[in-house]
């Protein structure tokens, strides 16, 4: 033989899926919610989505350029962050605030901690919460929807008013760009489930825990209408399927995912029913993100064959 061949450790073949393809699938899955947001809120929503995506990609590119690092924008994770951030903004937000949110998400939450895979919380939610604290007024102004009070259904619920759950399912209600249509979000969730991007451990344990909490502690008893409104309102659907399932900031252990979902459900309930605001999903998620290392340590899966060590041979 003329040439010496490359020697590597096994395995010598690889599956086709890479990070870029996964991110692409998430982007596709976000499209129903994004398109509905544009339909519901008009051109402003489209502008905010574009501004948010472009600035996220730009900040990642510029950070890596400045620090002379290899560019990673082609993995499309910045696009996902930009899209998710936009989904969490009210359509009336000034575009420059979206740029600030994108900058905080990418530079402070993601890149300073080492880039993709190292961020300890979901960058998009980090950006959103930063904007919530910095620009509380514009971030909670949903009047652009109907030109009136712009009270979200959750705020109405909290004030003791009744809401139209059918509208909440379809999404023709005030709210942030991507959170209003439960149906559009569920279509995206089904896409991700079918492509094997996410599984149901986190969303199911989150939503079930939250439902039980609502029935027990929200003070409405077993009011199905109230429960449906709580599940369809606010960011809980978007949060449960698109943000709590963020790989990097959720536990990798199977049991950890369930624990993570349960904590999310409890915290969201506490924030929504006992806190001053009608919302609570974003804070619940970023707070629970911080607990991930602890959750993982407490849920180390027992390896194959370990549990039966004592009673060996049991068929």
């Amino acid at each position, binding site marked *: 033989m003329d040439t010496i061949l490359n020697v590597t450790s096994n395995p010598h073949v690889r599956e086709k899926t890479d990070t870029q393809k996964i991110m692409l699938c998430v982007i596709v899955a976000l499209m129903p919610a994004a398109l509905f947001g544009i339909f519901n809120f008009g051109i402003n929503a489209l502008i905010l989505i574009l501004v948010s995506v472009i600035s996220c990609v730009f900040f990642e590119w510029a950070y890596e350029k400045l620090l002379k690092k290899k560019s990673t924008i082609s993995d499309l994770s910045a696009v996902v962050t930009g899209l998710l951030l936009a989904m969490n903004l009210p359509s009336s937000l000034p575009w420059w605030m979206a740029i600030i949110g994108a900058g905080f998400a990418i530079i402070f939450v993601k890149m300073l901690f080492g880039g993709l895979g190292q961020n300890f919380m979901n960058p998009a939610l980090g950006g959103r919460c930063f904007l919530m604290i910095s620009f509380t007024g514009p971030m909670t102004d949903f009047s652009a929807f109907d030109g009136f009070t712009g009270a979200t259904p959750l705020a109405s619920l909290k004030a003791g008013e009744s809401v139209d759950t059918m509208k909440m399912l379809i999404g023709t209600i005030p709210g942030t760009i991507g959170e209003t249509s439960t149906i559009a979000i569920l279509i995206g969730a089904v896409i991700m489930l079918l492509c094997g991007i996410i599984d149901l451990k986190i969303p199911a344990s989150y939503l079930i825990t939250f439902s039980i909490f609502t029935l027990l502690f929200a003070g409405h008893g077993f009011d199905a209408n109230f429960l449906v409104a709580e599940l369809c309102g606010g960011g809980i659907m978007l949060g449960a399927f698109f943000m709590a399932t963020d790989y990097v900031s959720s536990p990798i252990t199977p049991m950890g995912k369930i624990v993570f979902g349960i904590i999310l459900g409890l915290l969201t309930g506490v924030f929504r029913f006992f806190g001053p605001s009608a919302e609570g999903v974003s804070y619940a998620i970023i707070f629970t993100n911080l607990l991930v290392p602890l959750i993982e340590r407490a849920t180390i899966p027992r390896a194959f064959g*370990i549990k039966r060590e004592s009673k060996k041979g049991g068929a």
Partner: protein
Amino acid sequence: MGLKTFKGGVHPYDGKELSKSKPVKELLPKGELVFPLSQHIGAPATPIVEVGEAVLKGQKIAEAGGFVSSPIYSSVSGTVKAIEPRRVAVGDMVNSIIIESDGQFNEVAYEETEDVTMLTSEQIIAKIKEAGVVGMGGAGFPTHVKLSPKEPDKIEYIIANCAECEPYLTSDYRRMVEEPEKLVEGMKIVLQMFPKAKGVFGIEDNKHDCVEALQRLTAGNSRLEVCELMTKYPQGGERQLIKAVTGREINAKMLPADAGCIVDNVETLVAIYNAVRFGRPLTNRIFTVTGDAVVEPRNFAISIGTNYSELLEAAGGLLAQGAKKMIAGGPMMGFALFDLNIPTTKTTSALLCLTEDEASKYETTACINCGRCVEACPEQLVPSKLADFSERGLKGEFEKWYGLECVECGSCSFGCPARRHLAQAIKTMKKQVLADKRKK
């Protein structure tokens, strides 16, 4: 139909259609054959021939170096040319006996046993040991040791590993298509030693013709059973096979016998049959030369000790574009070769030549914690964490997360979207931790 299987695993492209329909062709070697003294787990064999000595085919050339060891026989007649270190498939230099074939294949006379049912367990074990039979699926554990468990009465299952879950490999498949009766006879001999055991042929459902053949041959025998398994890698891993067939689980500290099982590969059972019935030592096996870079993928009946390059030549050599990767064994657990000047041994079942080097083709990117490795791991480990611990030298954490349970199947690296070399990192750490333990 709920096929039996285990939890986890992956579905790599199986590539078996390249060679599965090619009948086994006997290949007579030319020139020099190399017999490494370590073709098995345990002590190396001790040479009992001298340089210049004439040997016959089937003549013992090295004696077992202990109980956990195995003798080695010449697969050709000729002259001992040298006893010196030679490179083997795994990359090490191993002391080897080199024999120049005279092309005559003059064979020693073997002691046949007309009625094997008259033999005692001790006699059967002695014949298997003397014939140099070892696990031919790849591990090379001496078969006579495996068949001598501490408590023979507790063995309830003899499992024939007919899964052949490694992609591309078709040697076991061809054996089952062409000579399934030898496999069944081998199983019957083993069952003779374990009166309480049932013989189960665990076979993936992609080899349906073999399932039918085995069902025909085992029909009416209440001690034999064919168990169809889901086609999934690593279904033929010992622990995974036991789980699928019996529902029992063993870990790294246990032996199959602890779960009442003994697992033997197809070729091993055939070698047991040849050894006990015909007194023939292990000198030949079926070997697949395949891959998209090979002109004519084939299955050969080879003389153990034949050079890899001779086998590739017999399969028509490489296509014009050449091969970027050559592997001894399958793509999931085989060893990459930098050169084909190495001998076949008792445990090598294939030469795979690929036009793509997928392991080096992709650049490793950041781990996104997606958990695909966790889902793929048949041992229910968290490979991404274990690889992190390996890279940071955290031995305690590595053990705490059950790193030593890794079976090195490669499923984690296969499915990793960040193209991390997870299995490699875990294997490296596992070796270090085990070495530390031995020192203590």
